[in-house]
Every structure is written in structure tokens, then in C-alpha cells.
């Protein structure tokens, strides 16, 4: 073989060796670049998330302020709040001159969509006391609704059955 041929052969061998040495680095480089591009694309896609979060936070403050400004609110859907409401209700019964006979409670859905705490309250008393009780009930902080009143026969003191619903906050 001529010297130039040998040199060419050596050159080819060196090029192959160099390529073999550099190929893994090139692959690693391409892989790293691809990963960086992918993460960058994710970040570009989610670019407005922080602004959206700030807007949603501001809107939340507005809604909470708006609810706080209202005369009526929803009773929190927690056992503590429901118990507190029942206690307040019995306090109203006593304070308006009625005598509580029985009270049953259950949670249900009004109009197929609104969660309520429904109380079946049996009391005894005069009509004026019932009138006072209803007025006091309507003056409570929570939104309530009297779904039924049944007045049974009698003289001055009568037995009355009231079905009272207090609307609860929606659960998370």
C-alpha cells in the first residue's frame, strides 16, 4: 500500500475513533437539550398561571366580602354549627313563652339541590307566643324557612308542630 493510502487509512480510523468517542456525548447532549426544551415548553404553556391565581384570589376576597355584607348567611355544614343552631332555636322557644315537647332533626336536600338541616319541632303555647317565635326565627343570622305549621285543636294553650329548615353551606 502506498504511503498516502496508509495515511488515508489512518485518517479514516482516527475519524471513526473520534466519532465513536464523541457519539455518546452527542447523544447525551441531545437528550439533555430535549429534556430542557420539554420543560421549557411546559413552563411556556403554564405562563399565565400565577396571574390567574392572583385574579382568583382577588375574586375570592370580593365574594367573601360580599357574603359578609349580607344580612343573612348560610349555616356552616359542621356538627358544631348545627348543634349551636339547635341550642339557639330551643332558646328562642323558651324566650317566646312556648314549651318544647319534642324536636327531631335530619339533614336533607330542599328542591333537590340545596342541603338543609330540617327540624320537626313540637311545642305547646298560645298563638301570640307562636307569632313571637316566628318573628324571632326570621330575625336570626342564618337563612331559615318554615316549611309547615300544624295547629291542633284546643283552648288557649295548643300543641303546634313546626317544620323548620335552616339552609346549610355546601360542603367542599
Amino acid at each position: 500500500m502506498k504511503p498516502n493510502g496508509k495515511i488515508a487509512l489512518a485518517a479514516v480510523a482516527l475519524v471513526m475513533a473520534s466519532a465513536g468517542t464523541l457519539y455518546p456525548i452527542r447523544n447525551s447532549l441531545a437528550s439533555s437539550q430535549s429534556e430542557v426544551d420539554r420543560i421549557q415548553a411546559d413552563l411556556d404553556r403554564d405562563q399565565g398561571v400565577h396571574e390567574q391565581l392572583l385574579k382568583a384570589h382577588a375574586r375570592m376576597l370580593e365574594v367573601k366580602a360580599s357574603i359578609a355584607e349580607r344580612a343573612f348567611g348560610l349555616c356552616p355544614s359542621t356538627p358544631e354549627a348545627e348543634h349551636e343552631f339547635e341550642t339557639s332555636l330551643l332558646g328562642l322557644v323558651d324566650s317566646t313563652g312556648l314549651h318544647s315537647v319534642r324536636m327531631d332533626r335530619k339533614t336533607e336536600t330542599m328542591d333537590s339541590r340545596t342541603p338543609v338541616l330540617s327540624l320537626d319541632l313540637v311545642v305547646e303555647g298560645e298563638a301570640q307566643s307562636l307569632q313571637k317565635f316566628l318573628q324571632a326565627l326570621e330575625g336570626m343570622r342564618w337563612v331559615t324557612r318554615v316549611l309547615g305549621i300544624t295547629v291542633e285543636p284546643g283552648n288557649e294553650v295548643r300543641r303546634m308542630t313546626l317544620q323548620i329548615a335552616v339552609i346549610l353551606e355546601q360542603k367542599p
Partner: protein
Amino acid sequence: MKRRKVGNIGLVFGNDTIRAAQNVDGRMVWSSVPVGENAKKSLRQLISSAPFVGRNAVVGLEGSAVLIESIVLPPGSAKEARKICTDRLKGDPLFSADKAILGIGVESMPPADSGQSPALAIMTAMNRERLMDVMRLCRDAEVEVQAVEASALAAWRAWNAEGLQVRMIRGGGHDLVLAGLDSKLLFCRIVDTPVPPLELRATIGRAASLLGAESFPLLMTVGVDEAGRQEIAGALGLEVTPPGRSLDDAAAVGLATEGPILADFTPPEERVLREKRHVRKVSVAMAAACGVLVLAAGALGTQRIASLHDRQATLEQQRDITQADKQQLEELNAELAREESNEAVIVEARPGHRMSTLFALISSRTTDAISIETAKVVDIEDPAYASAMRDKNNKDKKRAGPVPRQLEVRLNGLARTGLAVRQFADALLGTGAFSDVRVEASERVLLSVGVDGERFRIYARAETH
């Protein structure tokens, strides 16, 4: 860094000395050592005795190992020069074909009157054994031989001159008489020092006749002092001058000077070795270059990868923050939707009809003639709306806004007269709170002995939301 301009080292192997010269940055470096018992040591001593650069050398042999003759070839026989020269050397104890390597330089002369041009040949024979010894010596001393020639012929390249010229170079126990045209050497004769004037005259005359000239205008000499030049000039009747530059050793300088080599005696195995050295040198250079490139590319690539990893880590941190923001946004949106829904419930749930007011209205319209035994008020969803919502074929149904509701009031009691019942019902309707008031039943009944009354049942309906 400035690159130095250096040529090959011209090495002259004489019978008892080794001389060397090299052109380094335009300055000629020269040295000489006697050949001792250890020739390799002498050669190495020579190389290290002067600031020679590199180990590339053009080797020249002189003395008894070299035979040079200028011959005139008959017209038309230039192509057979080698055969003619071989025939001339047949039987020579030192330079026969099996003991020497033959080198021939042939130059055609202008055509003669016969039409065919004669040719001048300088026949050089180099003793094979001596040549091999020198080659071995160079290999042992790690001198890379680029060419081998007769130092007498190489002496012609020691300096340049124009036109027809004749030179006499004295050194190494010989006088060389060289003649040529411009840079082309055409005649050479080696004579023992000092050459007698008559023999010198005859040699110059023969050279002139071979070159087709009557005489030479001057003779340039090297190695001859001023007195010697004047003596020669007087004997020959020629102007004798030294060359334009001072030369310590014309043969070594000629070997160190680049130019056409009349006959290269480099042995084939030395050529192979030289090619191998060249291939190895180029390969090593290429490998070094590749290594540097690979290292540089590798370093840059690794650096770039490290940079990308850093950037990836930074981006991943940003992505984690964004993911946390997204999750927080989803939770906040869900909570916001719940709060907005709660607010809508508060707005829609506000009773349009206050039960205490309704109860007060009924009480206020009750007179002495009316006694209510039982009362029942029921707050129900509007049946028409509920029916429309349950209808699967109704595509226009929408669950938006407050649900319409009805208050149904049922009153049972006693009245003094039927008229009192009617008046009570009219009074209820007159409040404007009820959309419908109906006396569903009214009958005269005996309450006790001699006392009767009107038992009634009234249905009233109010619409609200």
C-alpha cells in the same frame, strides 16, 4: 511564536572526517569532527557540536567510496547510458555492478552538424558496502536520511552563478573541478590535491570542449588562499576569484542547499523506512490533532451538558412552583365556585313570604264570629315547576334561579253563621297575600242544646319563591 526556517542538515562522510552544515534562518551552521573508532558516537558528537535543528539530513559520500566520471555518449545512445556505464565498470573491484550502485545524470547537448545531438553524462558509482555502513550509522544515530548523493556533485549547489562557469573546490584531500551552465552541473572531475597546473589546464580545456565552449572567462575557487589563486591564475592565464560568499565546506553547504539532485543513491529499504517514518509522523500528527479535537469537543460537550443540567434543574424548580400554583389555583377555583354558589343560594333562598306575617294576617282577620280549631300551613315546591323538571322530554328546562314555591293553608273551625265564614274568606283574599281562597266545606251543625253553628273548612294558597 515565530517559526524557524531551517533546511536539511548536509552530512558529508569522508574517509577520516564527518562534516555537517545547515541553513538556519538564513545563516549557515557548520561543524566537523574526525571519525573515531566509534563512528556513531562521532556522528552524535557532530550533531550536538553545533546548533543544528532537527534530524533530517541529506547524506553525501566522498573519497574512495565514490567514483565520478564525465563521459560523452555517442549521438542517439542517451537511452542506453546505463548499459554503457555498467559496461565501463565491469570488472572494477570496488564499483562493479554487484558491488556498487550506479547513478547517471544525462544532459543532451545542442545538435551537431550531422543532425543528431550528443549527450553528456556524469556517471557516479557508490560502493554498496560503504553506503550500507553509512545508512546503518545514520539509523543508529537517529538521523533521518532524506537523500544520498555524491558530495562532489552536491558541491555545485553551494552557491549560484549564471552562465557558463568552471569551479575548483579544494577540500578533503581532493580538488574538484566542476563545470556547468547556470545551475546545471555538466562536468565533474576529482583530482588529488594539489592538482598540477598543467593537469588543471587540461581538465578545464576538456570541460570547455565538452560544453561546446572555447574557454571559460574565469575560474571560481574554494579552499584556495589568495597566493594559491594568483599562482593558478598565472599558470592558466585565467582570472581566478572566490565565490561571492565565504564557504567553509562547499560540499556540506551544497548538500544542505535545496536543489535538483543529479543522482540519488538512497537504498530502497531506506526509502521504505523513510516512507514508514513519514506515515508514522503524519499519523501521529493526525492522532494528536484528533486527540486535541476530541478532547476539546469532549470538554465543550461535557461543559454544555453540565450547563444544560443546571438549566434543567432551574427549570424544574420553576415548574414545581408553577405546579404548586396550578394546584392552588384549582383548589381556589373550586372554593370560589362553592362560595359563589353559596351566595347564589343566599340570594335565592330569601323568603318572599314571611311566615310570621302570614300568621299575623290570618290572626288579624279572625273575628269573634270565627273560631279556628286547626290550622295547617305547608310550604311546598310549585307542583307545575316540579312536574316540568321531572319531564324528560322537556328540553328547555333549566335549573337556574329560585325555585317557585307555594304556601298551602288549610283552616278548620266553627263560625256563628255561614255569612261569617264567607266574610272571613273574603277578608283573607282581601289581604292580597293569597292568590286563591276557597271555602271547601261549610255546614250547619248543632253545637249543644239550643246552640248551633257553622262548621267550615277553608283552603288558601299563596305563591312565593
